[in-house]
């Protein structure tokens, strides 16, 4: 196994009486393709929010490339090379699609860049035709593509894709998987959270299953898929 890019140590996050993440420890190797599955409310997104700095965990540490980043605000973590897409698309409304992609280019990548790189990213996700439209005019599907383009604009070393495939057609899932495979070949570590099982089984080389804030299975996708505990959580028996 190669070096660890991300380590989560004994991480917990409570919301009032609900413990959303309960003592999770997880290591991700550089270049790995990791899938995280689990029923709704199992703590996947909360875990990601703690890793990216949107939420502060109550306990535990997040270590990125050997550095404890637990105390850093989200924008500093983004600059260190952690990018994410949001489960529910959160476009920057009021500015154009192209400008949406320019924001991470401005703030993470290079202070001096032209619109060209942003346009290339739109081309990559197939939004070039909508470059000058306001972000609020996009369809749900296009918004998901915009989320991905914005995450990629930061030229991340760790990309967290939180349900980017939800609501996409089969051909679009294939397209998106290809993009992610290409990124992975380029050396980007990818954590994919997904409910679309065949997509995540195809993509990941390692699968983690969460349930009520804990990791209940961790291993090669085929093994995790056969795990009786995982089957119980997903299918009720």
């Amino acid at each position, binding site marked *: 196994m190669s070096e660890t890019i991300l380590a989560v140590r004994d991480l917990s996050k409570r919301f009032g009486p609900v413990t959303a993440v309960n003592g999770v420890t997880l290591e991700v190797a550089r270049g790995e393709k990791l899938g995280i599955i689990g029923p709704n409310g199992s703590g996947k997104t909360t875990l990601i929010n703690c890793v*990216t*700095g*949107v939420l502060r965990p109550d306990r535990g540490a997040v270590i990125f490339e050997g550095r404890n980043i637990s105390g850093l*605000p*989200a*924008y500093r973590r*983004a*600059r260190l090379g952690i*990018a*994410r897409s*949001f489960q529910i698309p*959160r*476009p*920057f*409304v*009021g*500015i154009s699609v192209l*400008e949406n992609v*320019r*924001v*991470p280019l*401005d*703030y*993470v990548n290079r*202070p001096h860049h032209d619109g060209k790189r942003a346009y290339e990213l739109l081309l990559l996700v197939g939004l070039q035709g909508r470059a000058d439209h306001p*972000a609020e005019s996009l369809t749900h599907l296009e918004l998901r593509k915009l989320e991905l383009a*914005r995450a990629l*604009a*930061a030229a991340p070393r760790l990309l967290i894709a939180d349900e980017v495939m939800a609501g996409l057609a089969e051909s679009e899932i294939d397209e998106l998987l290809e993009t992610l495979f290409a990124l992975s070949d380029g050396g980007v570590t990818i954590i994919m959270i997904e409910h679309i099982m065949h997509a995540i089984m195809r993509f990941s080389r390692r699968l983690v299953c969460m349930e009520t804030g804990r990791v209940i299975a961790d291993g090669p996708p085929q093994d995790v898929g056969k795990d009786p505990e995982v089957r119980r959580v997903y299918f009720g028996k």
Partner: protein
Amino acid sequence: MSNRYFIGAAIAVLALGAVAPHVVSNGYVFYAGFIALQYVVIATAWNILGGYAGFVNFGSGAFVGVGVYSAVFLFNALHAPLWTQLLGAAFVGALMGLGMGYLTLRIQGVYFSIGTLALTTVVSTVIVNWGFVGAARGATVMAPAPTFWFHDVVSYVFFAMLVMAVLSVAIARWIERSWIGRGLAAIRADGDAAECAGVPTLKLKLLAATISGALLATAGAPYPYYASYVEPDAAFSINYALNALAMPLIGGTRNWTGPVIGALLLSGVEQAATVTIPSEINLLIVGLVLIGFVALAPDGLLGLASQATAWTRRR
């Protein structure tokens, strides 16, 4: 509008303003023009934080008033010239914007709005009890006659306000088109998502609050020379707070032209109205127009215009 046209237009406007005192003999033009330009500065400055970043400042009166009284203080203490008064006001306004922002912008935007509302009361109470700047009875400021080019004080402060208006618009336009503007737009849309895209949201909000505060204060600084008498009630008037909000909302907040259009419209209507109707009714009209726009045209006149063009194109 490309940069070259904008710079050309800005220089042309300044040149016209400089030549005007030697061409236009009617003093009323400068008297009314000063107010129109002051409104342009206030609307533009307010919009940097309120429009671009989406943080509503109800306390514009505090910032304008602090500008007025910074000028009075510098005049009383040092007999400072007008340009020094402007710089001093900008400095105090910037500090107040930064401090106000630091205290409240870290939490939710609504706390900033509430804080700015209280700020006007706090600052005006200080001034009312400060004898050196005239306290409650007000201060008389006899401006020295301009030594060159300008014939009288009013056309001189008119020109100073014109410089500030052009400067404010240039700053707002630059912010809007630069990485700062994109960052502020991202914050207005979604603070968390902006952070995850690498935007240092707190720093950027503080920057916007500082610039906005500085420019708002400069809108007040030439007022003592203009009116030669100031008192706290006028300097911290609710009119400033209401107008600062109304002008960008009427014109449109997304673009630098919106506040300028709103300011020229409102000052024009006010000038026409003050001659014919009492000022209380004036305030009522502004309030009603504001409610109308918020309810029916939230993107202002610019929004209506773009809707209209989209509509005709579809036909």
